[in-house]
């Protein structure tokens, strides 16, 4: 649930990167962190296991600057992708304003993508959200690898809502900001609250 502070004229929004394990969610926000100038970013917080897998969440606060007199602050979260962290994913989705679903383009990961998307739908319903009403953007990651599913097949299997989708190579930064910019726009346009 976004938060508009009319006293300080600030908008806070929560964006969650969701997707299967090792799909590149953490890589996305690490790239955003690397490429963001000092004043705009806070510390990146990663609650990891010993082998660098996300245990609870990664968190990156981003100050985007002003839009129509409101300072905009985005809180980027990633969920742990591994199947057995379902409870953590559910918690992190609380209060979400927008979701980036990071799919792994490799052919052998299609099953995991589908499973993860089903878990997203289920967890959103549990939190009282309708996936069709939550801003959502798809990212087809790892497009530089050899054995990948075509964009058309990814679209057919994972994007039945026809939401915006981007090809990406998160490790090199390709597509990372396009995806983030699009979800940010959708989230900002979805903010309720006419001025009193």
């Amino acid at each position, binding site marked *: *649930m976004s*938060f*508009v*502070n*009319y*006293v*300080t004229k600030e*908008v*806070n929004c*929560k964006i969650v990167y969701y997707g299967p394990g090792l799909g590149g969610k953490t890589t996305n926000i690490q790239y*955003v962190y690397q*490429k*963001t*100038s000092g*004043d*705009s970013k*806070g*510390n990146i*917080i990663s*609650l990891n296991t010993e082998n660098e897998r996300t245990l*609870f*969440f990664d*968190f990156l*606060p981003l*100050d*985007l*600057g002003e*839009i*129509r007199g*409101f300072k*905009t*602050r985005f*809180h980027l*979260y990633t969920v742990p992708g591994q199947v057995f962290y379902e*409870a*953590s994913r559910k*918690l*992190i989705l*609380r*209060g979400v304003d927008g979701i980036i679903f990071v799919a792994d383009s490799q052919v052998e990961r299609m099953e995991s993508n589908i499973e993860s998307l089903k878990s997203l739908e289920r967890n959103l319903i549990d939190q009282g959200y309708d996936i069709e009403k939550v801003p959502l953007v798809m990212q087809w990651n790892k497009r530089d690898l050899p054995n990948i599913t075509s964009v058309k097949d990814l679209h057919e299997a994972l994007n039945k809502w026809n939401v915006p989708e981007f090809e990406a190579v998160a490790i090199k930064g390709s597509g990372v*900001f396009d995806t*983030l*910019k699009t979800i*940010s*726009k959708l989230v*900002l*346009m*979805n*903010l*309720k*609250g*006419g*001025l*009193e």
Partner: protein
Amino acid sequence: MSANKNIPKYVETFFKSCEIDEKLNRYSFFLIRHDGVVLYHNNNLADSLSKSSIGALLGGVWQAARALADFIPKKEFKEGYRLSFDTSAQGIYIVPITVSTEEFYLGLIYHDEVNPGFIKNKIREMATSFGEYLEQELKESFEKKQTQKDTTANGKNDFLFGDITDSEMDRLFAFAKS
């Protein structure tokens, strides 16, 4: 009487007017929403961690503990949970504040304290006072709105920004280094 856009104003008024115990004022405390957004902070910690990060961690640790507590078979809630992570002299203490359907957390981070029980009690008192104050303000605000609704048709469901152009988004993302 749900999410109210005046909450930040009430928070500011409360903390401006309440007399914070001198001892408590030496430490850091944060009032956050259930999703980790910081509403008020008295931050005396090192600058290495931003208030947003602290809010996210306080919110996360509470949510995780609350989910674990759901496994306790005995469903008796004579008193609400508090969360403590401490040694005999330093630690973190979180107290929830439920007002109507909204939940907030007051988190304290303290150190070098000879009497942690005393400051924990002060935090609990502050949480109770804040909860009562906010409940009252929201009730009044709700009643006022009901009266206004009776007399005027309003468009409170309007979108804050409506359409946003690509160039506005480009300006927002100008911070990104190429």
